């Protein structure tokens, strides 16, 4: 394929740029967490963690570790000025009630209409685990997925219809990949930004989807 696709760090950086000051944001485990590292200096963005906190700071250094203060990945974190704590029903009410501006999630697959599959590959014998994924998927005002567009085997993870068990229906608003940014929707997928030498046409071929070209529009 091509050498100019974004690294994972660059995907995280690209998402970080898209998050305006004052946003309330939940970052999923893994690559989404790294988005925090690329928020422009001086831009105030308030991080939510599902286990009951707004105003989460960076991971705790060893001398800052507090066993009572962890993030959704159970990693010790810190508190920023203006932080607040609340219980689980309030935390998920906040999520489900549409109060978060953005959540950033990983994905196994996203469908052309924005269905998300990121909790189970349905592999036989695997222990299923959902956590907060389904609530995040349907709750935030903007659900951003970060993922490589293709699996290691070169199969597109942006699909007509998900084959893996769904996390949420029609919930993804934008997909940041290593080769392009997509906006799925009821009428199908729009390509809004390209990286490297993929074209909308070559992406159509690679994904098998009738992608609309929105790269001319301002994002």
């Amino acid at each position, binding site marked *: 394929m091509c050498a100019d696709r974004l690294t994972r760090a660059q995907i995280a950086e690209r998402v970080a740029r898209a998050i305006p000051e004052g946003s309330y944001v939940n970052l999923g485990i893994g690559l989404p967490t790294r988005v925090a590292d690329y928020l422009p200096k001086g831009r105030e963005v308030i991080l939510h963690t599902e286990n009951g906190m707004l105003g989460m700071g960076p991971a705790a250094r060893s001398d800052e570790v507090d066993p009572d203060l962890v993030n959704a990945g159970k990693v010790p974190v810190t508190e920023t000025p203006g932080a607040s704590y609340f219980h689980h029903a309030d935390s998920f009410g906040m999520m489900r009630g549409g109060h978060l501006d953005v959540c950033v999630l990983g994905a196994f697959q996203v469908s052309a209409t924005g269905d998300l599959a990121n909790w189970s590959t349905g592999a036989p014998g695997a222990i299923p*685990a*959902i956590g907060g994924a*389904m609530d995040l998927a349907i709750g935030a005002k903007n659900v951003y997925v970060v993922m490589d567009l293709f699996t290691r085997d070169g199969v597109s993870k942006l699909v007509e219809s998900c084959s893996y068990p769904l996390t949420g229906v029609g919930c993804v608003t934008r997909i940041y990949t290593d080769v392009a940014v997509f906006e799925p929707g009821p009428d199908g997928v729009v390509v809004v930004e390209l990286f490297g030498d993929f074209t909308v046409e070559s992406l159509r071929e690679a994904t098998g989807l009738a992608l609309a070209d929105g790269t001319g529009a301002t994002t």
Partner: protein
Amino acid sequence: MIDKQVRDVPAALGGVEHGATVMIGGFGETGLPEALIDGLIDRGIGGLTIVNNNAGTGSTGIAALLKAGLVTKVICSFPRQVGSTVFDDLYRAGEVELELVPQGTLAERIRAAGAGIGGFFTPTGFGTEVAAGKETREIGGRNYVLEYPLFADVALISAFRADRFGNLVYRKTARNFGPIMATAASTTIAQVDEVVDAGSIDPETIITPGIFVDRVVAIGSRFENEMWAHVR
């Protein structure tokens, strides 16, 4: 005089019976009532259905309870974790039943039980496997799944500080499921670092009013270890 403090963990666990549904606070290890779980293991109370966000990791806490063979069923949102080998083995061997619930639905079902709500429509899980066989409904142009309250016989929770009325305050993200589980169980038992004089907790800051708490047991500071000197 009202005094909900009991002298030790065995006294706190009095009346917990074989076959009980037991809510256990905590998110991973954070806010987990370890002293009370150890007490359950010591007493060997079995046949339990436990409700927790997770299903234990390593060899302590919920993993130890599972390992002791005391758990028949786990209701949780995220059993699969690094180190959840005890659960994994029992589950694969068919020795423990699993009811998997999205985390927010788990929290809301617990809250509903405590708040007298008979059922609620949630958008979470609509169109997914967790909605299979459940009633769904379109309300105001959005699709919802009907979920029911989740009650327990006993809630075991961990809080930071209590008074003799059972009023509780927590610390940071260790609050998590404690306040809602306290409302959803017939008997709520809290382990706390310390019990302070009545009236010495600012009434504006009480997170769990004592009405939801039946027994309190002080287990001493979890931060005496010098490793935690900076958070004391």
